[in-house]
């Protein structure tokens, strides 16, 4: 502990860490304010429109339940509280769904669609800063750990005085790690804490998510700190260590992540959304022709042993709509189930692609812990679809169970609209997120373990 305190005292006297800390905190604050502003604006808007939509649904005039089903409503995916730290996939996925009869509509209007081409440079959130800039900061803190002493000749002096290279290394690493954790972790904890403390985010388990998320970011920074210190162990000069560390940063943070995406896309083919939609529509087309409808109507009459729809104990139109929807639900389940599974498989492969670069592992881990990953999006899409089905089934049942004779149309009153509860999506639980994060977390841990393991032989061969 005394060694760590001494190293921390040395760091405190050095102006470089103060400059690095100031720059990092400024960048994190600017990015955090930006994401906070976006999230607050979005949450405010969806809170208002969700209330308005509910009111519009409830205050419909008396009408046929199927017309009400077509009238439908829009539902919105609330932002995860930790989206202010890592918006993850949220800007890339639609968060608004039109709920209406017959149609499993897409989640539409992705924020990234409306952003300009320059907005994708990759520094728009605290998570982006951590993934790209914090490694640079860690390198700037760690590159001189041994190489500068070697250059000055003080390393020879320290080793000659009997200092153990291992203890020296551990002490410096611990001090630098503490400094990094303070500079990176504390601002993120403050920003995330403010977001987690906001009311209106039930079910997110935001505090444990935040702690795990910040720990992952610090571990990532630690990996680059280790890398810089390892290069410092072998480089003859501090400048050499810095040049090698910067080259490693370019490879690991800029080049390898894009190579990883190209590799994953080639290795894990995902079903095309366009083709999935086309298959669904082809199946529906065959089902809704006049001939197919007529055959189904005759089959219903036969099933009930009657000749005339007016003799049925149920409303023919309502029954057929109900059965049509059951058919459509099964098609949607099969096709979109396969589609979402394909995307999930690709995302899982990206977790393994973290072996190429810790940035890829951290991105997967970070968005999963923040609750902004694709699994959360898929959960919202299916929740909205479940809600839509609930409305359709209730409206169709009302028509089916109230047969109207002589071609009359059933008119339902607003009591029926009130039977439909408000849409209340719940996030996937933390346990599920932790399970999804297992692979990228293990990969990040592996990076740390390998880098730490490399220190052992390098320290054994340490030359002054």
């Amino acid at each position: 502990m005394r060694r760590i305190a001494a190293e921390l005292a040395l760091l405190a006297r050095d102006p470089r860490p103060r400059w690095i800390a100031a720059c990092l905190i400024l960048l994190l604050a600017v990015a955090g304010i930006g994401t906070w502003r976006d999230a607050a604006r979005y949450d405010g808007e969806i809170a208002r429109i969700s209330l308005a939509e509910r009111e519009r649904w409830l205050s419909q005039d008396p009408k046929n339940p199927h017309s009400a089903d077509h009238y439908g409503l829009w539902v919105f995916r609330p932002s995860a509280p930790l989206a202010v730290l890592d918006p993850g996939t949220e800007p890339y996925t639609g968060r608004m769904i039109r709920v209406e009869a017959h149609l499993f509509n897409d989640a539409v209007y992705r924020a990234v669609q409306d952003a300009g081409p320059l907005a994708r440079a990759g520094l728009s959130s605290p998570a982006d800063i951590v993934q790209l800039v914090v490694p640079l900061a860690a390198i700037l803190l760690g590159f001189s750990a041994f190489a500068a002493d070697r250059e000055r000749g003080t390393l020879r002096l320290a080793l000659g005085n009997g200092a153990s290279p291992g203890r020296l290394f551990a002490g410096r690493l611990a001090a630098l790690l503490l400094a990094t954790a303070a500079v990176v972790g504390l601002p993120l904890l403050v920003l995330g804490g403010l977001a987690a403390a906001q009311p209106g985010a039930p079910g997110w388990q935001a505090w444990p998510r935040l702690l795990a998320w910040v720990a992952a970011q610090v571990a990532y920074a630690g990996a680059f700190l280790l890398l810089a210190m390892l290069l410092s162990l072998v480089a003859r000069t501090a400048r050499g260590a810095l040049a090698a560390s910067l080259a490693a940063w370019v490879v690991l943070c800029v080049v390898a992540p894009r190579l990883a995406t190209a590799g994953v896309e080639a290795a894990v083919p995902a079903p095309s959304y366009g083709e999935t939609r086309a298959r669904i529509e082809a199946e529906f087309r065959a089902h809704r022709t006049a001939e197919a409808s007529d055959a189904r109507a005759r089959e219903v009459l036969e099933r009930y042993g009657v000749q005339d729809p007016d003799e049925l104990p149920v409303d023919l139109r309502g029954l057929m709509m109900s059965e049509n929807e059951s058919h459509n639900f099964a098609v949607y389940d099969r096709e979109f189930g396969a589609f979402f599974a394909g995307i999930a498989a690709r995302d899982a492969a990206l977790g393994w692609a973290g072996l190429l670069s810790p940035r890829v592992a951290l991105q997967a881990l970070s968005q999963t812990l923040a609750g902004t990953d694709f699994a959360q999006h898929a959960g919202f899409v299916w929740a909205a679809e479940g809600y839509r089905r609930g409305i359709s089934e209730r409206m169709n049942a009302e028509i089916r169970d109230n047969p109207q004779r002589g071609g009359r149309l059933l008119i339902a009153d607003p009591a029926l609209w009130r039977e439909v509860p408000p849409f209340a999506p719940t996030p996937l639980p933390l346990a599920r997120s932790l399970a999804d994060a297992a692979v990228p977390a293990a990969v990040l841990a592996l990076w740390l373990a390998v880098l730490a393991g490399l220190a052992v032989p390098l320290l054994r061969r340490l030359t002054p």
Partner: protein
Amino acid sequence: MTPARFLRLLAAEIRLIAAERLTWAILAALVVALCLGVRTGAARVEAEQASLARAAQDEDRAVRDARAAHRRYAAPTPVRVNYWQDPTHAFGYMTQFLVSHAVKPPTPLALLATGQSDVQPGLMRVGFGFSTVFDDTAFEPGSAAALRLGPFDLAFVLVALVPLAVIALAGTRLAAEQDSGLLRLIAAQPVAPRAVAGAKFGAAALVAVAAVLGGTALALVLFGNLPPLAGWGPTLALLAAALAAYVVLWVAACALAVSLWRGAVAALVILVLAWAGLTVALPAALGLAADALAPRPSRIAAIDASRQAQARFYAGEEAARVAAAWLAVRAPEAAGRPGLRDAPEIRRLARDAYYDAALAADRRRALDHAREAAAWSRRLALLSPASALGLALETAAGTDAGRHADFLAAAAGHRRALRAFFEPRILAQALRPVPVCDGCQARLDFDAYDAVPAFPARLEAGPGERQALLALAALLAGAALLGALAGRRFSAWPA
């Protein structure tokens, strides 16, 4: 120094660079990256073309199905055919069977840059009615995690990796001699430092330009599967010139870094940090500026406006009033005919017109924003060498925001054209139904399937040419500025 002596010096430097193993290692890695970038782009273009082909097949299929139904329903049948099952009816066809797409086909140079094509639709099926607030809902929701990281396309290689290759190639010229002590020996010769630096960095520039242009051409030939480029030659030539200027700019940056006389490693550190600043940080800052200069209108506010319109339409007698008002304008002579305004097609056409009018302001705001954001991005991009070249590549590839804004406007125009095509036909049938045979269940009033307006897809080389020219000018200016600064510093050897 005479030009002839300078040329001899230059040739000697080129021979030296060519003799270094590191040079070949860097160039080999660059060529591999270029090939991979081209392959990624070609695969994306193939997927886009396949998607467009599927859409075209679907449009043909819809017409085939409708014709088959027309033949089938031209004879008596006991099967009841509702209007939503009847493609022989102009109204049924327009609302239930019509498949018409607005398409943004890839340009011949599309593989150069993914640009915005992975987040903005290049294919939109035209729809009518209350569900559609904006047309640009279609997209291929691939892995969002991969979208965040970005593609390994040719633009990435040229914009981000080429400078790194240049830095590796030229970032230690003269500085390595300074570190090894050779610089004192060189300085003792009767040759001016500017001439030595000019020869060294000139040679590096020549090698780098030749390697980058040659490597790119080789990758395009090997993996590009380029279509005929008739009419796109000037754009390609300007892009090649801009790329060469970009390489020269980075060589000039290397010269400037070396001219600080802090040694090879310091020069490399400065250059890598400059690279991070110019290719990542500055474009990100410019993105924030573009966002502030062209604030986004709220999609949620537009959805709210659309729902308010629906709620108004369905409240009380508003639907009947709207239909009557619509009829009074479109068919004043028949406006008072009993039951006409309650016909489903009249109510629907009136409703859609009412809805379009209610949303017109929001849709116009969205289009204006798309154009404004593209315009600001075009202007601001010139402030960073990386974004200047990147945007030139995107514009030539047709994957830029400006083309998308034009595409959105054209799609809106296409929707209006379709409505203008069908509306009189539907109204005519409502006023004077076409007689059908006894026992025929379908309406049989529409078979002009081939006359339905097709989307006028456009492929223009002009915007790409203009943007490449602007990028070339900006990059040449940047290169000249850095070169002049370096030249000034090379007026004397270090003490």
